[in-house]
Each structure stands twice: as structure tokens, then as C-alpha cells.
């Protein structure tokens, strides 16, 4: 067989393989929608039906009308937490990253090492100490308890610092000639010209916050402070499960993230790359 034919053949095989793998990767999403729009007898029927005979969109209203499932409150909590966490982290981390990268200060390297050192402590291991602190502040089951301790992301500071180190100095020089100090240069020149890094870090933080589970589980002890993840977990691990309601709830819970995903995928990929490789370059 000629080499050209062989390479064509192998390309066709790998295309078929990719199609099969894609189908496999999409099955969980399919199940989410299928079960979410079916009735419980249809889900539990011994014979598999690929598409429910009638799509029960009424499952959605049933979910929100069910007084035992605090779904509306949970969606509101998750939204508020994710938005405020993202905004707060971006503000704090970008300011710190800019200061570290651009404002000369003799002890800046020491400050930077102090920040990077916290990355060595796996965040999950600190949940007991953090719980201790938050509970002694009286912040259990409060919004500030769920948000404030998560605002100080060392990895976000590293990403911003890295980015600002490569920021073109000419822009800042021009701003200085116009008589702008650090503060106004930052807001009027640097931020408007750095949208991609804000989008990348913002998307990562938003997804991480919306999907986080251990911290909201530990801190959100009162039902009124449950996030979507805690609600889903509580009902999926309980004794009697209302399958169609649970699946439609789970499907609804990923809609905001799919929106972020579609809108920011390019930036997200860039963010994953810099976050994944930040420590090792």
C-alpha cells in the first residue's frame, strides 16, 4: 500500500474514532435532558426508550412549584455567590497583580513569595481551619461566610502578574506624560486594554464558584443558604428520589455555565493554558 493511501486511511480511522468518542462524551448530557423531560415510570421502565414519547416540559414548572425543593432560592444564592465572587476576585487579584508587576517596591519579591507559598497548601486541606475561623466570626449560613473567604485567590494574582509583566510599557508611559498617576493609569489605560485576561480568569472563577461543593456544604448549614449544588446533592443522596425533578433541576443548573462556556470558550481555553502551566514555566 502506498504511503499516501495509508495516511488517508489512518486519518479516516481516527475521524471515526473521534466521532465515537464524541458520542460517548455526550451521553451524560443526553441522559440529563432525556430523564429531565420524562416521567418517572418512563425513566425506570425496563425497556430503554431513547426519547420519551411526550416531552414533559411541565417538569420545569413542577420543580419550581415543589415546596420541598428550595430550587428558586438555591439558584438565587448560587448566582449571587458566583457573580460577587467573580467580581471581587477580579478586582482584588488584578490590583495586586498590577502592583506586583508594575510598581517598584524593594520588598515586592518577598510579598510575592508570601502569596505563592499559599499555593503549596492544598485548599481542601485548609477547609477545617477556615471553617473554624468562619464559625467563630459567626458567619455560618451567611452570604459573607460563603463568599469572603474564597475571594483571595493566589493563582489569580499569579495570572494577572504574569500578564501585566508583559503589558506594553509605552501605553503607561504615554499615560504618565498626560499626568495620570498609578490609579488612573490603571483604570483608564490598563484595564480597558486587558479584557482577554479578565475574561479568562473571570470565566475560570465563575465556573469554579458555581460548581464548588465542599465549602457551601460546610458553611451553608441552614436551608436558606443552600446553593444549587448542595440542593442537588441533598436530594440525590436522600432515600426517596423524585427522578424527573432531580434531573431537570440538574439540567437547569448547568445552563448558566453552558452560556459562559459558549460566550467565552476562546478565553477559557487561554485561561486553562495559563492556569495549568503557570507554576511550571
Amino acid at each position: 500500500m502506498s504511503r499516501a493511501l495509508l495516511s488517508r486511511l489512518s486519518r479516516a480511522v481516527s475521524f471515526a474514532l473521534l466521532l465515537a468518542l464524541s458520542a460517548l462524551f455526550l451521553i451524560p448530557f443526553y441522559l440529563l435532558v432525556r430523564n429531565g423531560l420524562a416521567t418517572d415510570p418512563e425513566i425506570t421502565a425496563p425497556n430503554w426508550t431513547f426519547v420519551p414519547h411526550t416531552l414533559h416540559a411541565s417538569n420545569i414548572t413542577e420543580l419550581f412549584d415543589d415546596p420541598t425543593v428550595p430550587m428558586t432560592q438555591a439558584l438565587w444564592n448560587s448566582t449571587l455567590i458566583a457573580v460577587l465572587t467573580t467580581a471581587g476576585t477580579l478586582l482584588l487579584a488584578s490590583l495586586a497583580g498590577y502592583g506586583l508587576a508594575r510598581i517598584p517596591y524593594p520588598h515586592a519579591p518577598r510579598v510575592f513569595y508570601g502569596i505563592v507559598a499559599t499555593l503549596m497548601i492544598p485548599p481542601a486541606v485548609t477547609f477545617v481551619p477556615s471553617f473554624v475561623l468562619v464559625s467563630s466570626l459567626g458567619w455560618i449560613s451567611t452570604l459573607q461566610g460563603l463568599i469572603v473567604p474564597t475571594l483571595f485567590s493566589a493563582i489569580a494574582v499569579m495570572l494577572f502578574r504574569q500578564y501585566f509583566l508583559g503589558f506594553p510599557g509605552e501605553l503607561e508611559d504615554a499615560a504618565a506624560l498626560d499626568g495620570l498617576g498609578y490609579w488612573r493609569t490603571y483604570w483608564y489605560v490598563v484595564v480597558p486594554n486587558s479584557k482577554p485576561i479578565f475574561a479568562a480568569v473571570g470565566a475560570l472563577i465563575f465556573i469554579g464558584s458555581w460548581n464548588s461543593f465542599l465549602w457551601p456544604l460546610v458553611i451553608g448549614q441552614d436551608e436558606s443558604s443552600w446553593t444549587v449544588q448542595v440542593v442537588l446533592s441533598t436530594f440525590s443522596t436522600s432515600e426517596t428520589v423524585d427522578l424527573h425533578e432531580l434531573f431537570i433541576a440538574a439540567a437547569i443548573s448547568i445552563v448558566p455555565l453552558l452560556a459562559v462556556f459558549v460566550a467565552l470558550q476562546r478565553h477559557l481555553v487561554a485561561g486553562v493554558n495559563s492556569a495549568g502551566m503557570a507554576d511550571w514555566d
Partner: protein
Amino acid sequence: MQRRHLWFWIFTGPFVIGLVVFSYVPLIWSLTLSFFDAHNTVTPKNFVGLANYAAVLKDPAFTASLGTFVLFTLFIVPATYALSLGLALLVHRQKFGRAFFQSVFFLPTACSYVVASLIWRLSIFNGVRFGLVNSVARAFGGSSVAWLSTTHPPLYWLVIVTVRLWLQAGFYMVLFLTGLTRMPTMLYEAAALDGAGPGWRSFRHITFPQLRTTSVAVLLLLTISAFQAFDEFYNLLSNSRGYPPYARPPLVYLYYAALGQGQDLGIGSAGAIVLALVIAVFTIVQARSFRLGEKHP
């Protein structure tokens, strides 16, 4: 000059103060608690020395949790590494539909462990007849299996590992894809002149060594994140009666020790400190061994 210093602190101060309050203070506080009898209290008076550490290390549940972590790491790290590298290689050489495939494999990154565990537990690996895997097995004449409660053989590992594999593979595929795109095409042209076409030989001698930095980063990240596993274990295995006695990773142990019925924050803190040390040692050893490999290729 003084003004500049002031500006430095105006920019970095808010973050640094927050980091001190919410990272350093809890850590030091926790270190203190680990030497006290701290049942249901965060301001204990009863100093117990190393008793909490002795209790944690003697607790068979704690040592079993370390064993669970090692076993889990042995499953998940090579599996995720191989799958994400494989996906990247397949997607990379594809001219047609590349963006589509990349998006499909990356999409699970948007899904939470809670949602994925729910799908796995209640639909794919549901132990009763209507579970997807059981339905497929029955179609081929097999019988239904209670995936999550079968301990001999430990079939629950299949469920636990595939959840994480599905969620993480796309993330690491992106890292590998970037590594592949950065690779100079010159190398392959030179290899082609030497008679090595695309295939196993050029992968073995060019692609793989060139992906070294990415590989090291991916393996370290995978190990660290395996150590932090909590969400899928909790959501797959716990129920209203509690958590089964098997497959308890370190964080699940810690969760029940510190925040369960006992609320023993002294034991919980000691456990957290021991785990922090374990992961530090693990990371250093892993990083060292990779660097050693660099000198002797």
C-alpha cells in the same frame, strides 16, 4: 519614593490582608487547635500535646483513607493522562471538525462533580434494571449489577474513576493540544527525511519528549487534585444512613471527623496538618523524580 511604596500597598494591600486573615490565620489557629482537646469549641483550654496526632495516626480509618488515596491515584492519574493525551493527538491531526471535537471533549469541564455524580449514580450506573450500563449488559445477555455497593470485586471504583475521567480529560487535553501546537514542525520534517513517517516512531522519539514540560505539569496537577477528591465520593456513595465503610478518601475522613457528630476540631486539625505534610512530601518527591529523569534521558 515613599509615595511609590504607598501606591504599592494601595494596590496589593487589600489582597494581602485578606490572604493573611483567610489563609495564614486559619492555618496557625488550626496548628494550635491540633495540640488541644477541642470538642465543639474553637477556643479550647485543655492542652493535650501530641495526643490528637497519636489518635489520628492510630485510627485505622485514617490510614485506610491514605490507602484509598494511593489506590485512587494509581487508577485515575494514568487513566486521565492517557485519555487526555490520546484525545489531543487525535484532535490535533484532524483538519476537519477540529473545533467541534475540541468543544465536545472540553464541554464536561462546565459540569460540576455533583451533577456528574448524580447522572452516574442514578442513571448510568444505577444498580437496578433501568440503569444504562445494566440495560446494555442485559441486551447482550448479561445480568444487572449493583455497581456502587459491590465490594467483592470492588466495582465501585469503575464508577468513581469514570466520573472524574469524563470531567477532567478535556481540561488536560487542552493543555496537551497547546503543547502540540507549539511544537516546531521542523522536527517532523527532519524526521521524515530520516525515514520516520507519522506514526509510533515519531511519537516515541519526537512528540513525547517534546511534551515533557506539559506531561510533568499534568501529572503533578492530576495527583494534587486526586488528593483533594471529595465531591464525587460523597455524592456517589453517601446516603441518608451515612457513608459506607469503604472508599473513604482523606477529605471524606476529615469531613466526618471534624464536622460529623463528634465535631472534634482538635482531631480534625491534626488530620489536616498530617495530610498537608503528606501532600507536600508527595509533590516534592514527584517533582524531584521528574527532574532526576531530566539529567538521564
